[in-house]
């Protein structure tokens, strides 16, 4: 990868963050939070994307972003209200911007027709195109040579206070200075001090110099930040600040000031002007004149935080320079610390990350490095277990040093494993946040009104799980809107609000993540569902099904309630695909529905795909792992409990008759089933609350196992979901409970034995 490619990758990663920021902000604005900071946040996001896109010659993206930004600027400057007319256009524009970024990443231009449409819409909001011609009118050839220079960049107000650069905008320095120049009774000495990079490089510090100046008398220091570039262009070792000092006081002589700057004057632009060459006794010039940037103000805000060496009221201090790495003196770190504190107080204001909320330092790491780490930790856990086993076999006394060291090692490896796993943990937010857009699109395609609510988006799950949530969620949310919610008129007729509510929530529950998609629609139409299943030959016409069983029918392969194939559904993906993709993640999907009140689809997923809590069992000479999450309990079948139903064996357990499956036979390790009375049965919960007893020879214990793919070097094996390395260093297979339990239900014999069990 060339350096440019790498930068490109980083740019697109950052775009993702900015797009998220944009969507968050717009969502907040939609919810009525139209305060300046939210609007600024949105503006900055679009602005940053535009800036970066320009650097990569993504002209069409820049063009669109520019128009978008222009509208946002109007909102920002309160010339345009973010109302019901404006917001939908903005949201659509944000969606489109995401498309354009994605297109840019893939080397394309994106949907230019859509760009034009939206540009027209955006321009309409601000009373037509700015500058006389619409950006949408530009011919494609016309913008071939378009560069950033064609756009007038809007200066963007940053929250400097939050950045530690003082309060307000310091642009007015020159004028203020000029204005006071004319006054007869100006300050005794005017100092114009513009440090160059070298000043900081030589470990001089503007703040220290200014503090010494301030010690000479009453000083008013203005900081000129007009040269500070945008955050993305900032050179952390650059020098951007200039200071204008007005100094009054008995000791304030030009000579003394020159003395202070003696070692610095080669590395800065310095101008020291004494009024009339004399030092008259002036009335104090307040530190708060002219409303410019007063460092005294800043200092006042920071007071209590700074242990000022000379806590005289006239002691002013310039704030820290933007050169954290070069701060030599402890004094200079104090303002910085204090500003950090200040940020918290202003937290509502300083919303944007990277600017104000510095505490969580984040690094980007390529996923394969983390995966490698996880693999190695898995190895370590295996080796540790092996070692522990050997020590145990050696029969050393429990109190011995070796044994306690092994125990310590065990604790450390587990902690290490947990920590490494935590590296991959990611809030489900990243996938949840893609959903509002989907909701908007689906709602507009189906003509429904949807209020989309999310809960628990900060719930953390392993990255692999998060990544694979997107497809099932997309499908289920589409379903909830398309099939679940009624049309607004129907809803009103039923006495419900016209706007339907779809709720997406995530929560941790007993070591798993529970994700629920619920709607307040009409619920599953059971007679219709059953009829479709009969028509499609999925169940016999005379099948007697409970309500719950009827609801489960929608997850059968080949089932679809959509009578017509709409743009939303009918993509060839049914709930059966959703269900199997969730099962592939080691999860389960259940449905609950109340007619007239709505439905809820609940996914229960493991927190990680890398480790699994398993019960170690023996079948013939093989060691197998049964996922603990599926196990209800284990028992020894008693005489009289085991009965035959046709060819199949069942076992009576806790007033239920459940199928009894010999794992050894199911996996082909033996031909003839073993005697259940000499074996152990493991009662497992399959999907749909179906229960099955798995017969194994022996139970060896339970432990956490690192999941290894079988497919990578071989191929999927029916009845086996994955492999792991056992304590002895051998490969042990992880049982795919659903597949083994599901063997009986081939040939559409879906509810056969279960009905017997249920009745």
């Amino acid at each position, binding site marked *: 990868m060339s350096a440019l490619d790498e930068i490109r990758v980083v740019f697109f990663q950052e775009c993702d963050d900015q797009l998220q920021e944009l969507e968050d902000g717009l969502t907040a604005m939609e919810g009525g939070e139209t305060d300046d900071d939210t609007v600024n946040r949105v503006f900055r996001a679009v602005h940053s994307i535009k800036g970066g896109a320009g650097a990569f010659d993504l002209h069409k993206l820049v063009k669109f972003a520019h128009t978008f930004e222009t509208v946002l600027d109007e909102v920002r400057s309160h010339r345009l209200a973010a109302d019901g007319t404006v917001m939908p256009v903005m949201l659509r524009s944000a969606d489109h911007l995401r498309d354009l970024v994605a297109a840019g990443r893939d080397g394309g231009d994106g949907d230019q027709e859509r760009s034009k449409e939206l540009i027209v819409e955006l321009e309409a909001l601000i009373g037509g195109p700015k500058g006389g011609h619409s950006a949408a009118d530009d011919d494609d050839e016309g913008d071939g040579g378009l560069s950033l220079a064609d756009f007038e960049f809007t200066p963007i107000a940053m929250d400097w206070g939050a950045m530690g650069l003082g309060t307000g905008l310091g642009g007015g320095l020159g004028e203020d200075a000029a204005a006071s120049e004319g006054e007869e009774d100006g300050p005794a000495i005017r100092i114009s001090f513009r440090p160059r990079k070298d000043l900081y490089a030589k470990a001089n510090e503007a703040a220290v110099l200014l503090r010494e100046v301030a010690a000479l008398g009453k000083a008013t220091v203005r900081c000129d930040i007009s040269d500070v570039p945008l955050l993305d262009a900032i050179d952390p070792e650059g020098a951007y600040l200039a200071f204008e000092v007005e100094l009054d006081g008995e000791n304030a002589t030009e000579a003394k000031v020159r003395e202070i700057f003696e070692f610095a004057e080669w590395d800065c632009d310095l101008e020291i002007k004494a009024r009339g060459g004399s030092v008259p006794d002036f009335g104090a010039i307040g530190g708060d004149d002219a409303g410019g940037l007063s460092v005294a103000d800043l200092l006042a805000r920071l007071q209590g935080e700074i242990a000022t060496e000379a806590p005289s009221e006239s002691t002013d201090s310039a704030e820290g320079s933007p050169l954290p790495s070069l701060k030599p003196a402890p004094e200079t770190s104090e303002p910085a610390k204090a500003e950090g504190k200040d940020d918290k107080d202003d937290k509502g204001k300083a919303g944007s990350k990277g600017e104000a909320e510095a505490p969580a330092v984040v690094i980007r790491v390529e996923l394969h490095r983390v995966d490698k780490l996880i*693999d*190695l930790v*898995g*190895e370590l856990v*295996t080796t540790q277990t092996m070692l522990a086993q050997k020590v145990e076999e050696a029969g050393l006394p429990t109190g011995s040093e070796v044994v306690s060291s092994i125990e310590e090692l065990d604790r450390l490896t587990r902690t290490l494993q947990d920590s490494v796993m935590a590296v991959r943990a990611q809030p489900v937010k990243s996938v949840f946040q893609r959903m509002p857009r989907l909701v908007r699109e689906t709602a507009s395609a189906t003509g429904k009104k949807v209020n989309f609510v999310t809960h628990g988006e900060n719930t953390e799950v392993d990255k692999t799980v998060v990544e694979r949530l997107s497809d099932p969620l997309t499908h289920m949310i589409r379903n909830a809107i398309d099939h679940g919610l009624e049309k607004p008129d129907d809803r009103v007729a039923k006495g419900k609000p016209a706007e339907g509510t779809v709720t997406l929530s995530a929560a941790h529950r007993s070591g798993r993540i529970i994700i629920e998609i619920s709607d307040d629609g009409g619920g599953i139409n059971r007679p219709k569902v059953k009829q479709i299943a009969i028509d499609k030959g999925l169940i016999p016409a005379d099948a007697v099904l409970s309500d719950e069983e009827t609801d489960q029918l929608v997850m059968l392969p080949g089932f679809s309630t959509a009578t017509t194939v709409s743009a939303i559904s009918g993509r060839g993906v049914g709930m059966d695909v959703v269900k*199997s993709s969730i099962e592939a993640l080691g999860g389960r999907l259940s449905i609950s529905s109340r007619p007239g009140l709505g439905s809820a689809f609940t996914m229960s997923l493991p927190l990680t795909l890398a480790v699994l809590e398993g019960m170690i069992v023996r079948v013939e000479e*093989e*060691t197998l792992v049964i996922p603990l999450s599926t196990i209800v309990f284990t028992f020894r079948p008693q005489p009289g409990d085991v009965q035959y139903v046709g060819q199949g064996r069942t076992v009576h357990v806790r007033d239920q008759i459940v199928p009894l499956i010999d794992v050894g036979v199911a*996996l*082909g*390790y033996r031909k003839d089933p073993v005697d259940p009375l000499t074996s152990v049965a493991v009662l497992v919960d399959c999907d749909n609350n179906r229960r099955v007893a798995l017969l194994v020879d022996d139970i060896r214990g339970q432990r956490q196992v690192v999941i*290894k*793919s*079988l497919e*990578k*070097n*071989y*191929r*999927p*094996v*029916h*009845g*086996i979901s994955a*492999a792991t*390395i056992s304590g002895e*260093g*051998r*490969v*042990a*297979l992880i049982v795919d409970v659903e597949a083994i339990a599901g063997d009986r239900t081939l040939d559409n014999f879906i509810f056969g034995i279960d009905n017997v069990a249920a009745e």
Partner: protein
Amino acid sequence: MSNTARKSIGYGVEMVAFRVGPQEFCVDIKAVREIRGWTPATTLPHAPHYILGVINLRGTVLPVVNLAARLGLPLEDPTPRHVIIVVQAEDQTFGLLVDAVSDILSISPELMQGAPDLAQDSAKAFVSSVIAMEERMIARIMPERMLPERLRLN
């Protein structure tokens, strides 16, 4: 492997030669990741008879092909004297169970002849060419054909 000798006949392709029963085979050295002693494998359910099972290779689950079975040769139960040649073919890594590694050879292309047309021989599908050398006959196998097709279940 102590008797492994390097015999060079001109410039050529480097091959790892090994024995399965009385026959000699070879595989391109570039495909060989390592050679290791035999370890008991974990049986895979529903696997073809030539798949011995899976072993743990430093944390990777590695299927092992019993080469004799794959080539339709008389089957011998694997013993600790057997050797597993770890090969990589396409994106998969797996082991080949053989009796012993015999040589590392550098074989010039002109010594390689097309596989003889042996009707009714299941080995035909896996042998790309044969090399006649001194009084030996070495068949070059194609490791990428060794594993069963990666069929998707369901």
